[in-house]
């Protein structure tokens, strides 16, 4: 009887845990959509903000966020592609393999605010760039490097050696082998990693709040070393004046826009992963 009772208690616990978890998750999603849709309108998306964000829209914040991640992509993508090819094709000793592993996983583990402090010290103060969206892009690029590297490395590394041997037997140089045989397959992994990285990068506040963004009076930057305004830092500024219902309303609207952008990237990544995980050699 005792065993039966424990089993029943356990079942209740598991169902309760499930109900609580999904209750919370459902609550989060419904709050974001319910509050967010109330705040979003055509005007909100296409007018600049005014009165410290409490009035007007978020057009420059959207532009700023997209600018940040576009340049982060341009910086991070070629770097991580090269690193992943190196790790998969050039490293011969397991010692070097361990060092690169440690660096990548270490970089992946650094808390996001530390990236912000690094950017503040190294770029804004030592290199004297001032508050600059380009520095923000660089920092976001550094942040998503490990994600893209690992995803690309896994894709390239899973290509069987017979592909390489065939290519080399045909007289291809190593570079031709890489461009004709390995990259076409490796790129799909790289894009998946990029999408995952971007879905994280676009929502990050801590790395860019000291180094790349200004809250008000910012339009579209004309040079590399000017601040922009971005969606996450806009939410931060609005959340700090949460007693003003109008500001809070705009914060919900901004959150929903940001969430939708994040979801576009992460759903695309998920879809690619499901689609390309079926490749078998």
């Amino acid at each position, binding site marked *: 009887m005792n065993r039966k009772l424990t089993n029943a208690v356990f079942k209740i616990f598991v*169902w309760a845990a499930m109900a609580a978890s999904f209750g919370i998750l459902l609550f989060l999603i419904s709050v974001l959509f319910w509050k967010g849709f109330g705040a979003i309108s055509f005007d909100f998306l296409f007018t600049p903000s005014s009165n410290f964000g409490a009035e007007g829209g978020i057009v420059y914040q959207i532009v700023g966020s997209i600018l940040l991640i576009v340049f982060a992509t341009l910086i991070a993508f070629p770097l991580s592609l090269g*690193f992943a090819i190196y*790790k998969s094709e*050039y490293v011969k000793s397991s010692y070097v393999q361990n060092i690169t*592993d440690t660096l990548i996983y270490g970089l992946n583990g*650094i808390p996001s605010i530390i990236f912000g402090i690094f950017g503040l010290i190294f770029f804004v103060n030592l290199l004297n760039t001032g508050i600059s969206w380009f520095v923000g892009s660089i920092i976001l690029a550094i942040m998503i490097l490990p994600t893209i590297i690992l995803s690309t490395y896994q894709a390239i590394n899973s290509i069987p050696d017979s592909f390489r041997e065939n290519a080399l037997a045909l007289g291809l140089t190593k570079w031709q082998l890489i461009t004709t045989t390995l990259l076409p397959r490796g790129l799909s992994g790289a894009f998946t990693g990029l999408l995952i990285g971007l879905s994280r990068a676009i929502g990050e506040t801590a790395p860019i709040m000291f180094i790349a963004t200004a809250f008000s009076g910012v339009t579209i930057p004309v040079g590399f070393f000017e601040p922009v305004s971005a969606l996450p830092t806009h939410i931060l500024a609005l959340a700090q004046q949460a007693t003003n219902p109008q500001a809070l309303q705009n914060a919900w609207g901004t959150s929903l826009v940001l969430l939708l952008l994040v979801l576009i990237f992460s759903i695309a990544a998920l879809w690619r992963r499901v689609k390309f995980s079926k490749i078998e050699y």
Partner: protein
Amino acid sequence: MLVSYNKIGKGYIMLSTYISMLIALLIFIVLFINSFDAISQVGLKLFTLEWNPSKNEYGILSMLYGTLSVTVIALTIAIPLGIGTAIFTSEILPSAYRIYVKSIIELLAGIPSIIYGLIGIAFFSTWIASFFELASGRTILTAGILLSIMILPTIVTLSDDAINNVPKKYREAAKGLGLYPFEVIKNTVLPIAKKDITGAILLALGRALGETMAVMLLIGSIDKIPTPFYNVLSPGQTITSKLGREIGESAFGSLHFSALNTMGFVLMLLVIILTLITQLYLRKSNRLYE
């Protein structure tokens, strides 16, 4: 011509490798150099209670306490809830639905932390304030609860993988001995999945330690250890919230800046070590069933 392309190609690959590795080292070195001032000038007085830059007092104990207490609260809530949910999704839920449920949970793991912070401010802090009849709902407990929600998806999805990776034959053998589902899970499935679940928890711990935005908005930002120390219904301060609040205001090169850097450096080391343990040690487990 072919050879030169080959060389250019190799050059590009080596260059990007060196740049990436240099960046990783640079972050480490820059933070270390900048925390050096505080370590040499403040020294052991870092481990005191008073933080007052105008008097050159830089005690980080209350921040350490805040980080620790918030993390403990978050894990206390998230571990049982997360593992319970993972047992549900991997053992009870029909496997046809599992992929959808998992996808949804993984998408939720991607909600930016600032949005959690906003939800925390708008709902959780007011609930806590009215429930416990406090003047302000921005307390250590509020931050801990919100943090537990933020790390829940990580624990659920990774533990679910761990439990799901346990081969069917173990369950069938245990069931064949006449064990109840609870006994099958407790005595057979969980011990095998233990290592991977530990990995999931360590990863969640790393995320909780480094989480900034939501905690910063909710913890109240007061550099004090509450009296008595287990009174989590009072405001506090974590390392990350301190950094987020003050690093913009401190002058570059000052002792104040350096002391903040030291905290950041300590935090970074802690989280990196945790991450490395999870990735390099736990992943290399040679599973007994393979």
